[in-house]
């Protein structure tokens, strides 16, 4: 390893791009204000007079708000010039161990921040959404004012602090600190209602699942230091540069296996935190936490940490031959699987949870399809509309005493005071369903089109799977909308009815107050406006594209102009050929669309013989609208918007009920409504449903069985040697003497 690090660093210093400039010192405040908020909430918990008020909420909202404003200022600072610049801000030196002066003989991890446009992009929506959701939570958590309230906001602020460390840290160790920190806060907040066994179990599950991923991440970081001798981004990326050059030259053989193994390990961490296929099961259970938590942590920010990690270390991923195809396929399969599960659920919050897993799958697929722009754009749009969807669900849950069953609610948007919730929900659903011209539509299209453009192992098939998934997404999204928000007005209270107004006999659904309504309105507007960012800086795939291109996450491009190809190690045949002949591969659909002219990528694949970039808008619209119409047909209320395809006149029934007699022997199995509805979904998605259950089974066997086995072996070992601890002095003396004899004999026999 030493031998490698030496020449490498020489290469780096000869081709030194220069250390990034020092940034404004106040940028550290973005990180530390939330920490201050956390400390102040702790103080509130100690002082009884402050504990009984909503003070913790206001402290949190105010400090997070300042943090957001500072982020906006930072954005202006960073993106002021032509090109987004990279700056470093160092708060203090955390670790500085040195054993020599040569490069690679220091271990430095400072409490410093690496700020480029990717960082700012992430921080913008993290702090912005955190502020809004804290405001929302100030009302949502109001029946818990007291110690619990303080605990909630302390953990909430601590979460923002950790997330900021994760995103802004200038080294992998600080990223890991943030990574563990968000995991810890997630654990604390999922288990917020610790009196309920389910919440505790869910918290544990999330924790353990994340640990598995973290192990991979930790090993990846160690391997990075082992090989490159640094974990500081500013030093690491110049060291990766020679490999990227090798990749561009088509000389994959120069890239050592160790470098290729690093992303494979980092990836495991990303899969855990972002709930991807082997490790996704914790996220649906995480819905035990209060809804604002689900919206912020488990939909908008924390779960995108995996995407951030891969985007941040994108050059490392690009030089690995295996990493990106695995990422693409894991993302695709996750998207499909969780969409099918979401179709079978009744709990609207759980449906949203599965949809989050599914959308995260899209983002990973996007990364795998070499469009980090698409992935980042989807993260950005998803953050807004998914947060708003969750907060709508939360408003419903808050107003109807914990009711989340879509069969027990109907026509909510027509009730007095629920208009804003209904509209926000509609906007969110349209976004999620990929309805034409919404933000979710553009961001999803960007990923879908690239699936057909990028040549990769089975990427076209993945593209088709994702298209179908888009249809399924539209179906389950509007199933919720049609059943809960439109139709005849009906509401049954949930089981938290006693917790509310003090008298349990009567149940008053209470409409959301100003805080919830204003937050929902802002989010709904924001998720519409997010679509607009696609048209800013059009030649760089929108504003998000510009932000991504200015950072380390930018796609690696070989060639220029029309001949440009996005490069990754698994495309080395293509890249090599390209580099050697200096001309681009000429596939059928090479003609770039007007939007793509001057863009940095060029089409190499085709969609049924057409240019994917051109037709994908229409194709995906088709799938989305088909899904919505199916939902309208099966679950829509009678006379909806003059479409007259719906039939539902009661909350609990839908046209799907008509299928009941036709089901023959299965009907008795479906006496309970739960089973009936699940059966309808079963008939629609039968093969996939079976698949998902098989997966569940494997999941249980694997995790539970393994844990059981691992747990039992040591105890068996312990029981078998326990008699040695007999408590009798002579037993111990004999043990010592025979141990002595054994060791002497062993040493004598084996070595002398």
């Amino acid at each position, binding site marked *: 390893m030493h031998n490698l690090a030496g020449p490498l660093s020489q290469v780096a210093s000869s081709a030194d791009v220069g250390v990034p400039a020092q940034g404004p010192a106040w940028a550290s405040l973005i990180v530390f204000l939330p920490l201050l908020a956390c400390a102040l909430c702790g103080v509130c918990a100690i002082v009884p007079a402050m504990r009984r008020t909503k003070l913790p909420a206001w402290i949190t909202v105010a400090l997070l708000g300042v943090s957001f404003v500072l982020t906006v200022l930072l954005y202006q600072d960073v993106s002021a010039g032509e090109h987004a610049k990279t700056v470093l801000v160092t708060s203090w030196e955390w670790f500085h*161990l040195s054993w020599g002066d040569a490069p690679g003989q220091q271990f430095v*991890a400072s409490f410093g921040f690496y700020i480029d446009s990717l960082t700012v992009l992430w921080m913008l929506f993290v702090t912005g959404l955190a502020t809004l959701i804290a405001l929302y939570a100030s009302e949502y958590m109001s029946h818990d004012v007291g110690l619990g309230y303080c605990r909630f906001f302390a953990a909430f602020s601590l979460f923002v602090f950790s997330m900021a460390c994760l995103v802004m840290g200038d080294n992998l160790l600080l990223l890991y600190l943030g990574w563990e920190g968000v995991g810890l806060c997630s654990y604390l907040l999922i288990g917020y209602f610790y009196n309920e066994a389910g919440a505790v179990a869910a918290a544990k599950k999330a924790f353990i699942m994340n640990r598995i991923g973290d192990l991979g991440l930790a090993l990846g970081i160690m391997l990075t230091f082992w090989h490159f001798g640094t974990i500081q981004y500013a030093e690491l990326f110049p060291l990766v540069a020679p490999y990227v050059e090798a990749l561009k030259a088509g000389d994959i053989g120069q890239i050592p296996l160790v470098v290729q193994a690093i992303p494979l390990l980092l990836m495991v961490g990303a899969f855990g935190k972002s709930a991807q296929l082997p490790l996704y099961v914790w996220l649906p259970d995480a819905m035990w936490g209060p809804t604002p938590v689900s919206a912020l942590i488990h939909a908008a920010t924390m779960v995108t940490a995996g995407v951030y990690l891969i985007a941040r270390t994108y050059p490392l991923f690009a030089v690995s031959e295996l990493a990106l195809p695995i990422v693409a396929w894991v993302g695709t399969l996750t998207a499909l699987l969780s969409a099918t599960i979401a179709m079978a659920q009744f709990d609207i919050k759980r449906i949203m949870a599965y949809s989050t897993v599914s959308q995260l799958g899209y983002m990973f697929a996007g990364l795998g399809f070499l469009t980090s722009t698409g992935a980042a754009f989807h993260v950005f749009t998803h953050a807004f509309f998914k947060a708003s969807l969750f907060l709508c669900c939360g408003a419903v849950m808050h107003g109807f005493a914990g009711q989340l069953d879509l069969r027990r609610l109907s026509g909510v948007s027509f009730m007095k005071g629920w208009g804003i919730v209904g509209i926000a929900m509609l906007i969110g659903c349209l976004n999620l369903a990929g309805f034409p011209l919404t933000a979710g539509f553009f961001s999803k299209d960007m990923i879908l089109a690239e699936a057909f453009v990028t040549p990769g192992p089975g990427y076209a098939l993945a593209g088709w799977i994702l298209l179908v998934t888009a249809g399924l997404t539209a179906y389950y999204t509007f199933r919720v909308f049609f059943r809960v928000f439109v139709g005849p007005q009906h509401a049954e209270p949930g089981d938290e009815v006693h917790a509310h107004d003090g008298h349990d006999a009567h149940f008053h659904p209470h409409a959301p107050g100003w805080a919830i309504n204003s937050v929902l309105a802002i989010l709904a507007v924001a998720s519409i406006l997010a679509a607009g960012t696609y048209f800013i800086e059009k030649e760089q795939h929108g504003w998000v594209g510009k932000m991504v291109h200015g950072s380390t996450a930018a796609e690696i491009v070989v060639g220029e102009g029309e001949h440009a190809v996005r490069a990754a190690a698994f495309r080395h045949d293509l890249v090599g050929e390209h580099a050697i002949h200096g001309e681009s591969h000429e596939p059928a659909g090479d003609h770039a669309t007007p939007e793509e002219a001057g863009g940095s990528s060029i089409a190499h694949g085709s969609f049924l013989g057409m240019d994917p970039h051109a037709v994908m808008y229409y194709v995906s619209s088709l799938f989305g609208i088909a899904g919505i119409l199916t939902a309208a047909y099966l679950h829509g209320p009678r006379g909806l918007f003059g479409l007259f395809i719906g039939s539902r006149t009661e909350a609990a029934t839908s046209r799907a009920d008509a299928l009941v007699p036709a089901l023959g022997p299965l009907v008795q199995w479906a006496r309970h409504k739960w089973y009936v509805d699940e059966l309808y979904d079963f008939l629609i998605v039968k093969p996939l449903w079976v698949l998902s259950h098989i997966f569940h089974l494997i999941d249980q066997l694997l995790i539970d069985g393994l844990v059981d086995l691992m747990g039992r072996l040591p105890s068996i070992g312990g029981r078998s*040697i*326990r008699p040695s601890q007999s408590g009798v002095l002579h037993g111990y*003396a004999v043990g010592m003497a025979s*141990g002595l004899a054994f060791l002497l004999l*062993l040493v004598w026999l084996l*070595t002398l």
Partner: protein
Amino acid sequence: MIERIAWLWPEIILFLATCVVMVLGVSPRLALRRQCAFVSGLALFLAAMVAIATGPMATSPWPQMVPFMKGTAGFVGLLTLLVLAGTVDREVDRDQELGRGFAALRANRAEFYAFFLFSMTGLMLCASADDLIWLFLALELTSLPTYVMVTISTRRSRSQEAGVKYFFLGALGAAIFLYGFSLLYMGTGSTDLGAISTQILAQAEGGAINDIAMAGLVLSLIGVSFKIAAVPMHFYTADVYQGAAASVSAMLAFVPKAAGFIAILLLVSTVGWQWGVADTAGVSLGAGHSLPEPVRLLLWVMAVFTMTVGNVLALLQRSIKRILAYSSIAHSGYMLVGVIAGPQGARFIDNGVAATLFYLLSYGLMNVGAFAVVASMEHKGEEADDLDALRGLCRTRPWLGWTMVICALSLLGFPFTLGFFAKVPLFTSGIAAGEYALVVILGINSAIAAFYYLRLAALPMLEEPVGEAPALTRVPARIVAGVLSAGAALGMVLVAGFFMERAARAAVPGLFDGTHASQSATDQIARSGERRADE
């Protein structure tokens, strides 16, 4: 001889304080007797400060380790002293407050604090040892007082049982390493560690290490492993920790263990880490980076058994003190990995000795907290030692509960606690030394440890309280110690780099350890190899 005094001021301070405490503690006036703890604390603090201020001790095999380990001993000792406060003489004091007079023969305060200080003096003397006689005396000075402290720590017969087992098995262990020392002397003709090292390397260059010297070294290591509670000398640990008051157990888990590890490092430094693994006899110098094969094999087997036995036995316990006792065995096993890896490698993360020293410091800090929680809870006038006492502690006794959670997680090596930063270097140094099998076993053992440490963390945090909450001790200093320890387990992370660097510096072997001799021997062997190849 005179110049050596310069490094002994900490010990001299402690000794003078011991004299004061011994007389103060039998004073008929209660107010005076109560000053014992204060005087001890002041002396420890002064000693630690003086120790830190002193420079490297040139005659020691580990010149920089002398100030580092004395400072560590002083500050962890201070923390331990907070827990130890109020362990003895409660009844005697109460009787006197009720006007029944002072029964000097029943009072134990003088002995208790004086013996604590003696033990600390012994630990510091261990750190400055450069001679077998000195090392022997220091080790005995460290452990003899602890035998008494265990016995008088409570009035229950369990403490006396613990005392019996500890004393007799301890005497057996001492006899074994003393015999080892005598053989080492017989084989090399000197008790000075530097001279022994030179002699051994000269023997190796002349063909092979003298058998008697090697047997002496092996016997000494096995005997000293009693102090660190390593297999096969571990049997006493659980019974002694359980029988002694929790406060004394807190001390037992650090002071003799630190002394034992210093002794092992000193002894092992006489042969050094510059031996080739490939040599069949393992007693000739090679170009490799390893201990001589007999010593490596011995420590390897001990490390593997120690961590495994400690962890699997800890799984079955219901007594918190027994869990901590068995886990303390396991931690010794972890640290042995660092000893085996040795101080080679330019980087801190490759330096096993630095890892061991840093782990000792971290373990000392975290461990006090866990024991302080047990020492702070009372149930019907006795220590609440059962796991059930921890249930829901975060809600009933939040300070104690969270202390337990943090300390247990840190002992587990949970990421971003002190324990994590302590454990990672053990792994990396093991890998750097090429001890892959050992590192894998270390990893598996860390996983096993998670079972019981997570239980210690989950019971206070997640479970419902059972029955009434355990009563708090009347000694607030213990709770303070626990909170300080938990604070250190979290806060030290922010400045861990500083301490790691100190540990790395402390792990640089002294000049006399035969580096030159070994270098020439290495060259010779290489040359002879070439010659053979030529022929």
